[in-house]
């Protein structure tokens, strides 16, 4: 069976975007989006763990007995999270500091376990790696945009550079986190629904063309 990489990419980024469509991994999303930089740091850490765990689980899918698959998946994920944690602590101590408690909590991030369970344990290695990559990018993009919005509105800065003195404290508070997330889910649903409608019309028009040409023949 040929793997449809384009579909995997589209799933991860849009149709089943882990943050905005499936609403998985909400804890780091709400906690770390006070700044755009946090979003990139967390996003890339999760992406790395996702790709690695997807590859390993896909390789081991026949070796892991069905009854103990969840503990086995968690062990694989915990190993990679430990690697990321040690690497960040050594190479990028600033990011390690700002991610704090949420770094070890990647272990229980539902996105990773969900992908292991629903994709990697059923698909080939290359497809699983691609899935991990695009799910991770979807997560990173969502977190970074949300972080940027909250940083601009809440502290009048972007990536740490001060833009202006004006700021609304609400957006950097925890209530602002829930509010921004709600608005993002809503907006994303609106945009993707519109786009889906458009592509449906386009597709039906194409089918119409096809039948016409057939009739002309």
């Amino acid at each position: 069976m040929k793997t449809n990489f384009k579909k995997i990419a589209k799933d991860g980024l849009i149709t089943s975007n882990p943050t905005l469509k499936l609403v998985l991994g909400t804890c780091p999303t709400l906690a770390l989006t006070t700044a755009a930089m946090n979003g990139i740091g967390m996003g890339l850490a999760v992406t790395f763990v996702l790709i690695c765990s997807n590859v390993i689980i896909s390789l081991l899918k026949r070796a892991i007995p069905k009854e103990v698959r969840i503990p086995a998946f968690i062990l694989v994920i915990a190993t990679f999270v430990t690697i990321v944690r040690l690497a960040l602590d050594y190479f990028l101590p600033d990011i390690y500091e700002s991610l704090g408690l949420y770094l070890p909590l990647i272990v229980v991030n539902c996105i990773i376990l969900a992908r292991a369970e629903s994709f990697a344990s059923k698909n080939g290695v290359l497809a699983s790696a691609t899935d991990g990559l695009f799910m991770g990018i979807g997560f990173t993009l969502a977190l970074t945009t949300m972080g940027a919005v909250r940083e601009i509105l809440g502290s009048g800065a972007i990536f740490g550079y001060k833009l202006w003195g004006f700021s609304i404290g609400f957006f950097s508070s925890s209530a602002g986190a829930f509010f921004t997330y709600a608005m993002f889910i809503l907006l994303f649903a609106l945009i993707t629904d519109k786009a889906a409608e458009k592509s449906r019309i386009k597709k039906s028009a194409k089918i119409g063309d096809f039948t016409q040409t057939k009739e002309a023949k």
Partner: protein
Amino acid sequence: MGQFLMIIVSAVFINNFVVVQFLGICPFLGVSKDFKSALGMGIAVTFVMTLTCLITYPIYTFLLVPLGLEFMEIIVFIFIIASIVQMIEMVLKRFSPTLYNAMGIYLPLITTNCAVLGAAELVIDGGQMASLLGIAADQMNMGYAVLYGLFAGLGFTLAIVLMSGLREKTARLNVSKRLKGFPIAMLTATFIAMAFYVFTLI
């Protein structure tokens, strides 16, 4: 006594696990549709969290640190939590079928609940605990760890029960199709978070 009160106020209100520290958001949004299941989830989490702190804290301080195996903490902790959950499930099934029926379905979900692992990671971090409880970092001991686990769990229960009360009300509202589900739940959470914000001003 003053210390004791400080732990309660800090863990339950000022640094509420759900709405201030954002730990355990998945059950907070997922299992808060009605009061009964919210309370069940809250009690189950409190129970597991207290037990987890009781076991992980000594294992970390008296076993992993002397052996220089601190880097293994994530793997060790997640396995301890998974075994605790499994054991509670078996004990309840054997000795208290009523309690098992009330709590049983929430127990497997708790293994991957970040509030529990979060509590285990927090109590071993002397600096974090010092700022959360207002004690010196070297004062941290087993008693504080277990009490923190218990009251953080109660804070979680308080938040999820409040949320379920509000959601039972919002479920009856006639809102637009798009707002239904997660967006309206998050907006409800916004108001709970605003209410808890008052405690940070103390």
